[in-house]
Every structure is written in C-alpha cells, then in structure tokens.
C-alpha cells in the first residue's frame, strides 16, 4: 500500500468509520474496472457521508467511481483515473412507500429484489426487467441506463423516475423532480442522471412511480424461418389494437441461449410477445396473435408456461448476461433505429458478422433497439481485428440509418480500439458544458462516458 493511499484511507475512515473503508489491496479486486483498481473503497451509510467523501475527493482531486452491486461496471469506458470506489450498497433503505399514491422513494443502493419484495406485498412493481436484476441496485440500474423488454408498454426509467437526489462533484447535495406522479416544478435535471454512469452526480435517493402488478400475464412464442417474417409480425402487432407488454425478436442463437424446456426447440427466429389482463383479454390477445403470426408464415405458435407473472420478459432480460457468458470476448452492440429500420440493420449486422466468421446472437426489441452480440471463439488480437472490422462496417452503414449505435459491452482491453460510443455527436459540446457545471473538478467517474467525459 502506498503512502498516498494510506493517507486517503485514513481520511476516509475519519469521515465514515474504519469499518466502512476497504484499503487492503487484496480486498479491492471486486472494485476493479478494466484492470484499474482503486486505492480505497468506501461504503457510506448516508447521503451526508456521501457528500463528505465527495467534498474530500474534490479538495484532494481524487477520482471517484460510484458503484452498486458492480454488475455493470464493464459498461462504458474504464475510468481515466480511479482512486476511490464509492460503494453505495450501504444506502439500502426504503425511505417511503405509498401504495395508494403509487410512489416509492428509495436510497440509491437498495437491491432491486428488495424493492420487488416490498412492492409485491401490495401487488405493485417497477417495470425494470433489466439484465442482472437479481443482484443489481436501483442506482446502478438507473445510472447505467439499461433497458427492459417491458419498455414496450411501460417506457424506460425516464418515464417513471419522478425525482432524484444526488451529490454533485462539488460535494453538494441537490435534487430535482419530486415524489408526485405529475410535476413540472423546475428543470428535469434527474433526466440527465439516467444513463450518465455517475459522471454528473452520485445518486443518493431515487423516487419512482410504481405500477399495479398485472393480475395475470401470458406470453406467446412464434417461430419463423427468417428474420423478415419475424419482424413483419412486430409491424402487424403495432398496427393492431393489441397493447403487449413486450415484443422481443430473437435470432436463432439467441433463442437457443434462452431456450427453456417450455420454449420449442427451433432453428428459426423467435418472436416472444407478452400480454397482461383478465382471462378474456389474454384469450383475445393469444387468438389475435396466433392469427397474425400464421399470416406471416410462422412455423409454430405456442404459449409459454408462465410460472410467475412476467416470467417471459424476465427471462428475455437475461439475454445480455447469457451473451456475455457465451464468449470469452463477447462484444455487444446496441443499435437503435426506427422500427422499420430493424430489418435492414439486422441484415447488415448478420452479413457482416458472417463475413468476418464471427458467431453472433441478436435480440431486437419491438421499440427499435437491437442488441447484436458478436461472439468470437477466442479473446485474441485476431478476434479483435475481426470484431473491429465488423463493427466499423456496421457503424458505417448505420450512419445513414439516422439511428444510434454504441458498444455497451466488450472486453476491457478492447474498449480503446473500438468506437464504443458510436459515431461522433454534434451535441457533445453541450454535454461537456453540463459535465463542467455538475463536476468542474472532473472527479466523478472521469473518462467513463461519451467523448471521454
């Protein structure tokens, strides 16, 4: 341990107590991000302690990376500097839950599963069927901006986060929004925090709108010989009066990853559609869906066993961890397009990957988000060269499609070589200016975000 890190850990212990400070290098491994290990990990237990740590870090120019359950630290770029891991799991209480108002206020580091348990008692839930949901915290989920199959119906966090309290890079506690479902008081600063990877503020409290848990859900899987027909079913659903909770298109290999005993084995493409409602509503949805699927040359249409409410979207949410586990060098592209663009982008990506002799798996959400996983057999220079060529080709085609392309996941040592934030953006200067307002000393997750922010 260096003298500098000894000093930092001693100061940290003064601020929040020695029991909440980890300085032993042997114990800091779990906080590693892309081969960078912090000198100390601090686990504050209150928003006040968070503010004190950030003030200290601001004064000493120490770089902080906030984390929750550390399930998504591999997203974004590794930090340019990394002195203090700010472990937010010590802030784990439900601050207020008003089932009648359908609002929930939680400390940032609370695990999603604890929220789920508390809400289940009142037959409510948060529509966050996100990857790693079984371990993830509220703040990690919000700060990483991961999405959920349920966005088809419920939208994303930006649609149901009502307000956020955070600590800026000055160490100042601030907030925006509130705890009521409708509110236009002040600027929506909290929207900036969603997906910002902690570069604008350390989240300390998050207020959510909660939703009634559907009384019953049902999922139907249709299989197709090709992507085009699967995507056509998505378009047919969009033109219909059905209001599915989720519409997910899986490539054959993605289907194979997620296949359970109940999912029919198929070499084709899957479309998995989830519905909620009464028995009469579910019957109608299943009937209409079957008809539409058959009109679009489905090779099979079958209900999925729903042991639990929302089982199917929750299973599909595991695509990301499964794809990451499927290759030593999994590189997952996130490509968003208008829905009619799904076909062309999937086609381009698949052809490019095939030409580069890279295995791949794809998941396309009906709203127009495609996760395309390149799955090299090895993590070698040759794999990187092939992935780089494929990515550049996909992104180049993409520039014309007026969509958004990023690489949320890839091996850490590949991050510098790959365009992980996609094509250059004209609005980057404004983002930098905002970063400078929230974090003028550049101590909050420096370098983790787009454009080196």
């Amino acid at each position, binding site marked *: 341990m260096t003298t500098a890190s000894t000093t930092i850990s001693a100061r940290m212990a003064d601020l929040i107590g020695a029991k909440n400070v980890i300085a032993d290098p042997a114990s800091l491994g779990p906080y590693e991000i892309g081969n960078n290990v912090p000198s100390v990990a601090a686990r504050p237990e209150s928003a006040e302690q968070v503010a004190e740590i950030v003030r200290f870090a601001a004064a000493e120019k120490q770089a902080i990376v906030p984390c929750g359950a550390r399930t998504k630290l591999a997203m974004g770029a590794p930090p340019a500097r990394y002195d203090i891991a700010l472990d937010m799991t010590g802030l784990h209480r439900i601050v207020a839950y008003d089932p009648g108002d359908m609002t929930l206020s939680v400390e940032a580091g609370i695990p999603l599963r604890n929220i789920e348990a508390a809400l289940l008692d009142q037959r409510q839930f948060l529509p966050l069927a996100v990857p790693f949901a079984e371990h993830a915290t509220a703040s990690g989920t919000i700060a990483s901006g991961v999405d959920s199959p349920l966005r088809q119906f419920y939208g994303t966090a930006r649609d149901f986060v009502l307000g956020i309290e955070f600590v800026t890079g000055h160490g100042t506690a601030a907030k925006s929004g*509130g705890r009521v479902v*409708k509110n236009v008081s002040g600027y929506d600063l909290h929207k900036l925090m969603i997906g*910002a990877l902690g570069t604008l503020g350390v989240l300390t409290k998050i207020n959510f709108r909660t939703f*009634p848990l559907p009384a019953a859900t049902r999922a139907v899987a249709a299989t197709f010989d090709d992507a085009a027909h699967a995507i056509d079913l998505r378009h047919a659903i*969009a033109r219909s009066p059905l209001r599915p909770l989720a519409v997910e298109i899986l490539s054959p290999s993605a289907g194979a990853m997620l296949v359970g005993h109940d999912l029919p084995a198929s070499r084709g493409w899957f479309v998995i559609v989830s519905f909620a409602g009464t028995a009469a509503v579910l019957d109608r949805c299943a009937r209409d869906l079957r008809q539409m699927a058959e009109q679009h040359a489905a090779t099979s249409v079958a209900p999925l066993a729903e042991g639990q409410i929302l089982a199917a979207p929750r299973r599909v949410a595991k695509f990301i961890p499964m794809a990451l586990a499927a290759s030593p060098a999994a590189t997952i592209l996130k490509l968003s397009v208008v829905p009619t663009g799904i076909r062309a982008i999937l086609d381009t990506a698949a052809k490019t990957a095939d030409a580069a002799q890279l295995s791949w798996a794809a998941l396309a959400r009906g709203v127009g988000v495609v996760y395309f996983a390149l799955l090299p057999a090895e993590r070698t220079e040759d794999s990187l060269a092939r992935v780089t060529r494929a990515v550049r080709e996909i992104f180049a085609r993409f520039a014309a499609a007026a*969509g958004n392309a990023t690489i949320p996941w890839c091996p850490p040592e590949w991050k510098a070589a790959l365009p992980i934030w996609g094509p250059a953006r004209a609005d980057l200067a404004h983002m930098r200016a905002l970063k400078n307002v929230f974090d003028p000393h550049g101590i909050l997750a420096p370098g983790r975000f787009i454009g080196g922010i």
Partner: protein
Amino acid sequence: MASTTIDPRLLRDLQKLLGRDGVLHKPEALLLYEYDGSVETAKPDCVVFPRTTEDVAGIVRLAKQHRVPLVGRGAGTGLSGGAIARNGGIVTSFARMNRILEVDAENQRARVQPGVVNSDLSLAVEHFGLHFAPDPSSQKACTIGGNVSENSGGPHTLAYGVTTNHVLALEVVLPSGEVAHFGSGAVDPAGYDLTGLFVGSEGTFGLVTEITVKLTRLPEATKTLLAIYDSVDDATETVVEITARGITPAACEMMDGWTIRAVEDYVHAGFPLDCAAVLLIEVDGLCEAAEYEAGEVADVCRAHRAREVRLAKDARERDLLWKGRKNAFGAVGRLSPTYYTQDGVIPRTKLPATLRRVSEIGAKYGFSIGNIFHAGDGNLHPIILFDARDPEQLRKAVAASDEIIQFCIEVGGSITGEHGVGMEKDRLMPLLFSEADLDLMRRVRDVFNPEGLLNPAKVLPGPKGCGEIHVRPATEPTPASTGPASA
C-alpha cells in the same frame, strides 16, 4: 421595466430579416401579446413571425446583438406567463411555423414545426388510427411548441403520460444563435438526455423550431363513466380505491358541485345540479379490457355511495361529458370579474384531506373556491373567484392561494403539475427546492442561456426575496379573467 418603444435600428434589422409583415410594433398591435392564459401581463417591444429555422436564428442573433430580451410564444394559452415578455423585448410567435413536416405512420412518429396546433396533429393522423396523446384542455388552440416548453399535461396523462414522454427529438435555436439537434427519431441516443432536459424548460434554454414526437395508437374501445355523488369525500375516496384495485384509468377527473352548477348552466352537459361532486372516468384499450374495467370502476363508485353511475352510450354522449369538463374554466370565468387557478399537486391519497382544507381556506377568506381537477394524478385546480379591482380582495385571493399551495407542499406535493412555474410561481420555488438545487438549475440554464436574454425572469426566483411569499405590489398588473381558459 419594459420599454414600450422599440429601438428603430433593431426594428429595421428585423423588418429586413422577416419582411414588413413579419414584425408587429405599433402599440395597438401589441395589445394581444401582453398576456397569455395566466393572470400576468407585460408589454413586448415587438412581435416577430419567423417562417423558418433560419429566420429564428437571425432573430436570436439580432436580439443578442442589440441586447434585447427574447421570448418564444405559441398560441398564448399558457397558464403561468411563460410566453409573456416580462422584461419587454421581442416576442417570437411561431404562428407561421405551423406545418406538419412529416408523418411516419408505420413508425408512429411525426416531425412538426412548433406552431402546429395540438389537436390538428391528432386530426391529421386519425386516419392512420393514431393520435398525439398529450391533450391539454386548450388543445384546440395550444401549440406543440408550447406543449414542449411547458411539458404540458391534460386529462389523459394518468395512463398516457405528459408531453416529455412523447418527445423524441428537438431542433432548437440556442441564445448563441447555434441551431442544435437533440435526440433522434430512434430511441436511446448516446450521451446525456438533452431532449429530456429541454422539454419543460419553459423556453428558458432555447427556442424550439422542430419537434419529433411519438404517435400513439387509438384504443379499440373507450368507456366513459359519470359518477354522481352527494359527498365530496365519497368521490375522492373512490379515486383512491380505483387505483388500489390495480386499474389505471385513461382519465379520472373530478368537479365539485359548485363548479358543476357553473358548467351546466353554460354547457348543458347533463350534469345534475344538486350533487356535491362528479367523477368523469374513462377506461380504454381492447374491447374486453375496457368492458371489464368499466364494470370494476362502476362497482367501486357504487361501493362509495355514488348516487348514480352513467355510462356514455355513444361518442356523442362522451363528447358532451368531455365538453363539460374542458369548458369548465370558461364557464366559471363568466361568474366573476376575476378568477385565479391553482395547479398544485398532492399525493392522490391526500385528496379527501386536501379538499377539506381548501374549503376551510375559502371560508376563512370569504371566497367561493371551486374544485376541478385531474383526480387520478392528484393535480388540483382550485378556482378562486374574486374581484381584482378591490385591492383587499386581491390580497386575500393571493393569501388564500398561497395557503393552498403551502398545504400541497406539506403533504408531499408540488407547486405545479402541468401549468409551469413561469413568472407566477417562481417566488414559490424555494418552498420546494434548496438554494443549492436552485443554484444548480441556474447554472444549467446558463450553459444554454448565459446572458439571460432568453425568457428572462422566469422559472427560477430572482436574487432577491428567496423563500419569501409576498403579495404582489398593487402597481403590478392585476389578474385578468380574459385569457383563454384552459387546464
């Protein structure tokens, strides 16, 4: 404060840019632009009518060059003074930028200019089975640019969300003259959510010149119910119970007896004159879903002693019920020289207690206070009737209104649900936000609007008088009831 004569050099430059018919500057021509739907007024130096984004950029550059304040304006139906030139200067009307640029039905998107009237967009896409979901009561007049600036709501926000949930991308002219593009037609653009930050910034960050919105599929079936009560408490408790049963109605509106009598006299919607309150509840979706939920809602209403539950038989009956609701403010406006509408929000479960408190506050100051509001999301619009020509009444009206807002905040609510802060509630912001919060908001605004020339003296309280609720000095403009009624 506000000068009423325009610098002739600026006038010449504006006329050169926009043509003579693109600039209004004679005092009589400016009268219409002194007010919006709120109680505030202020005189602009001139009103300009750009036709293109380049025109807007030119106007912004001239304002910067001449150091004159600049305010954007849609239809002027706003309820918080957002479109009023508080410090004088140039009002930029988007009345001539009113084209729907593109409808992409397959992707459920539309690209529009800011001056497009809200309901015109829904009408234009109706034949595709689509609509633009945010539906402020002023939707036949208000513009989408105004909706974006104010993050407008409406009766159907409970299930469908407010404007920000339906905006994907913006083209904005910043006070620097830069034309910036935020967001994209595809979801999830990389980087910070600048679109989300801009929507609801009340025209203080930039002038929006183009908007990409989501379009929503029209429901297969809609059921509209009117539940009639002899007690306000029974009505409010119904609202709490409906959501507790897991039903999210498309709309859930309440009017108290006092308001109903004013409305019925004017609209003849068939509301009973002797009741204490009505709930207007709408459920929609698949036929099977709407049928089931309408039955559930009717059960809850009866269980809470609704004396009658009516189901609109057809579109005509439904439209009549909604006409009664959407014209309520206009109806009330006939009863008094002046009225003042609040926009406080409370947690829905606090509705019964809040309405009792509002009634006590009315009694204390000797006012009739009508209640009409979006009950489902706890967004109140108490209406205080008074005569602003009487300074004592004006003082009392402001005091009563502040007490109501104070109560909303005490029970965990907010000062504004959908009307915006504007120039009316900026003084109340310190009740919700700390000096640190406000300072951060100010510095975020300064990123885009560093010289404060764009829509000055709005949203954030000025440097003086923070945390203080004060009565407007008598020399300031008095509230007027002539503005377009809307909520």
